[in-house]
């Protein structure tokens, strides 16, 4: 039987089945967005549709539009939540035009395909550079020799930067500021089976969300690492990396770029890590100090912030409209809709409970 819905939905489902298998929803902080989203799902879909329409009216070249979108993992995260958002509107009988919903999904998938060169839902890998871009990186960067001590220092840098991003953007929008790209296979001159892994941390200073970050000295860090005899897999989100092999023993080359300037010395990298670790603990304290109402508002602001440049180019304010705040004010979380305490769900259960079947129906109408 011919399927009436696009192929990408099955690809998405395969990736998400694996993603959920490896996740424990109980660990997600600071609150569970699956339980917050139903309060404003219809508004979010309508706002995205408005932005896409405005962009199309402006007749901006598509490749220019792609440039203002965040990294591929962030787009995947937005799609991953947009599907339950749509499912919520169906369950709650909200008046949302299916044609408009399809237009939103089609647009985001087109952007994702333009950003990700293959495996768009990162079932195994997160390939976001062309071969020539990788060659350019390899040839233009000044590489330093790796060693176990430096590998551990890079691990500490990852700990500090990723946790700071997590505190600034919460568990649900972390990807806006963190992506891990690769594995990019390299020539044998580096060893038997060398790969390049790029860890990218941007938005370490989202002043619009957290004014205290004005004092942070660093905004963007990129860590380039070449490993030999290390296998890397990515599961949907760039930061969901699973490595096989000893990263410390097998770091062949490295380079660390901080706001455009390269750092190589161990003591400089360790100093930066210590500073980020301290900032991340302080940031988490700020999050903990928010009361429930402030926390809900912050989460909506973070959801909008991910698409700040896109909304701006469409001529819209990236601050959430008051209608969103009205929807969540003094409202409890909607517990019970999603089976978030159930571990080891089957693919069929995920398709049913997380809106994938409803999405298939949307395209079959």
């Amino acid at each position, binding site marked *: 039987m011919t399927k009436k819905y696009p192929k990408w939905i099955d690809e998405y489902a395969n990736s998400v089945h694996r993603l959920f298998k490896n996740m424990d929803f109980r660990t997600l902080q600071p609150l569970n967005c699956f339980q917050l989203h139903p309060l404003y799902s219809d508004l979010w879909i309508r706002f995205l549709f408005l932005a896409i329409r405005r962009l199309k009216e402006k007749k901006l070249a598509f490749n220019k539009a792609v440039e203002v979108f965040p990294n591929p993992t962030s787009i995947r995260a937005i799609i991953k939540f947009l599907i339950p958002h749509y499912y919520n509107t169906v369950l709650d009988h909200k008046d949302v035009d299916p044609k408009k919903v399809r237009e939103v999904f089609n647009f985001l998938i087109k952007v994702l395909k333009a950003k990700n060169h293959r495996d768009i839902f990162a079932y195994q890998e997160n390939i976001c550079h062309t071969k020539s871009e990788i060659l350019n990186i390899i040839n233009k960067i000044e590489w330093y020799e790796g060693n176990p001590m430096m590998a*551990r220092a890079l691990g500490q840098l990852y*700990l500090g930067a990723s946790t700071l991003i997590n505190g600034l953007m919460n568990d649900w929008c972390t990807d806006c500021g963190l992506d891990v790209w690769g594995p990019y296979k390299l020539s044998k001159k580096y060893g038997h089976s060398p790969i390049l892994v790029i860890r990218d941390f941007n938005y370490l200073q989202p002043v619009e969300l957290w004014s205290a970050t004005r004092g942070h000295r660093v905004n963007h860090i990129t860590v380039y690492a070449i490993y030999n005899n290390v296998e890397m897999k990515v599961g949907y989100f760039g930061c969901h990396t699973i490595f096989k092999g000893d990263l410390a023993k097998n770091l062949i080359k490295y380079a660390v770029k901080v706001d455009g300037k390269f750092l190589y010395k161990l003591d400089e990298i360790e100093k930066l890590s210590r500073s980020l670790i301290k900032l991340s603990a302080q*940031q988490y304290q700020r999050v903990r100090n928010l009361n429930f109402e402030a926390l809900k508002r912050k989460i909506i602001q973070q959801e909008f912030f991910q698409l700040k440049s896109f909304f701006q180019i469409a001529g819209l304010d990236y601050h959430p409209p008051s209608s969103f705040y009205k929807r969540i004010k003094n409202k409890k979380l909607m517990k019970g809709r999603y089976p978030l305490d159930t571990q080891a769900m089957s693919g069929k259960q995920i398709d049913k409970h997380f809106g994938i079947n409803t999405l298939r129906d949307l395209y079959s109408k």
Partner: protein
Amino acid sequence: MKPLLKGLGVSPGQVQGKVRIIKSGKKNPQFNSGNILVTHITDPSMVPLMARAGAIVCDIGGMTSHPSIVSRELGIPCIVNTKKATQVLKNGMQVSVDGTKGMVKML
């Protein structure tokens, strides 16, 4: 020897060390370099401790939870989803943590 605890081994390697049970948000807990960080689930308030931990053991979590990802990057063993690490293990216990097999044994 029978393991004290079993869970999901998410970052390989084997180390021995002293257990420190850490509760979320606790300010300046006693924690020495190489201690085994045992907690319900790590959060960013524990990051300074994670940076010095010999291994991490959590009650809950999956292959791609925060402690799992970070431990792989740090190259230290990690076990999650033990269900009861914070109940079974006690401060000061000397244990061996096997992140490959997902087992904690008393020394």
